[in-house]
């Protein structure tokens, strides 16, 4: 596994411009959760991150549904990466993504009708979640299916965790509950504002601010040590 001068992944048979550098599978998974978290770092998929995160159950369901779509799409984009001509690749990716969104939507409606009802109009909108098209174009179309799946799991988990963080804070403050379980009793006056759209912007902003602050702190500490 050498052949590094150009940074070409040794496992790929041919050179592909802009291919991601070689990495172990755990590293492919971990990247989506941490350093390249789709919501908190890449700032992709912000629409669902704010629209459906007014309760933890909705946030988790949206995260899981998006992850399933991501898995199916990245797998198929990677499998057919040599068969799809470059001129029609975006069209083909959108077709693959839309197919999996429909499949997941139907499966959800059949198995978890309540969650499906709560997500309602936001399910079909996963098609235009730029995180998924982004991963298909930037990663899955340039690597073997195994790496694409690892990436999908990492990005999916990272997306779900970001949504869970936002929706957890919003449900706790906006409804005084978590997963529908009342935590503060009847004397708690819920901050209705938090479950409305502005609460989404505020929560996401505060979480990103906190994350940036922690990153900054760690960087300056590392510098002080060095």
């Amino acid at each position, binding site marked *: 596994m050498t052949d590094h001068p150009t940074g070409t992944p040794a496992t790929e*048979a*041919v*050179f*592909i*411009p*802009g291919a991601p550098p070689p990495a172990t599978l755990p590293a492919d998974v971990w990247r989506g959760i941490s350093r390249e978290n789709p919501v908190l770092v890449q700032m992709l998929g912000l629409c669902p991150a704010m629209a459906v995160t*007014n309760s933890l159950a909705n946030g988790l369901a949206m995260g899981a549904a998006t992850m399933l779509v991501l898995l199916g799409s990245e797998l198929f984009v990677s499998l057919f*990466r*040599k*068969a*799809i*001509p*470059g*001129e*029609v*690749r975006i*069209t*083909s990716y959108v*077709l*693959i993504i*839309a*197919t999996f969104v*429909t*499949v997941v939507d*139907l*499966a959800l*409606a*059949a*198995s978890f*009708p309540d969650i499906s009802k709560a997500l*309602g109009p936001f399910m079909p909108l996963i098609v235009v979640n730029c995180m998924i098209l982004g991963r298909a174009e930037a990663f899955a*179309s*340039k690597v073997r299916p195994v790496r694409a799946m690892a990436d999908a799991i990492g990005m999916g988990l990272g997306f779900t965790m970001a949504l869970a963080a936002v929706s957890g804070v919003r449900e706790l403050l*906006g*409804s005084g509950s978590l997963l529908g379980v009342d935590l503060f009793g009847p004397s708690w006056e*819920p901050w*209705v504002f938090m*479950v*409305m759209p502005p609460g989404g912007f505020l929560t996401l902003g505060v979480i990103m601010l906190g994350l940036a602050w922690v990153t900054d702190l760690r960087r300056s500490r590392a510098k002080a040590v060095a």
Partner: protein
Amino acid sequence: MTAGHQHGGPAAAAQRSGTPAWRLIATLAIAGAMSGWLIASVYRVTLPAIERHAAERESAAIFEVLKAPASWDTLYLVGDALTRTAPETRGGPKIPKVFEGFDASGNRIGVAITAGEPGFQDVVTLMIGFEPESGALTGFTVLEQKETPGLGDKIERDSAFTGQFAGRTPPLLGVKDRAGATPSEVQTITGATISSRAVIRIINNAVARWSPLIAAWDQGGAK
């Protein structure tokens, strides 16, 4: 980047000008056919479960608004009269339905209808139960709403609001306080006035629309 990569992936292919048109068309045609086949298969597998959930939701709503009927019948609106037989409508528009609820000894205890009209954000759809003879409501339940979480969605969750409709006689009048001075007054929710009024308007319009139809059906005799 560089020309001459014969076996490149998609990005490299984009560099070579001129993939033959038939290959582009063939790729999209095959992808479209596979996608269509997959969706059709999943649709066929999931359809029974999805229809069962919808029927369960409808039954639960009828059961709730008619206060636990022992049984119920479905009437269909065809033209401008009610009929007991469902007309053939494969894939056509949904036919408006009335559910007649009966107690254990077969007496009608009320009818349930569904109706939807715009609320604050989107259409609010209700299942409404009332007694056609007296005109009094037996209750209502929200089938679908997308009102503001925490405010407008109280029309579904606030039992002080939903509980006051049973026994009231439409046309209802929404008031901010002192509800109950007359049998048609209901108290609106503070902070959700528009959503509350939407509920009241939907109930008033639905009862006004359906009462004569049901009266005509009753006149026609219990055939």
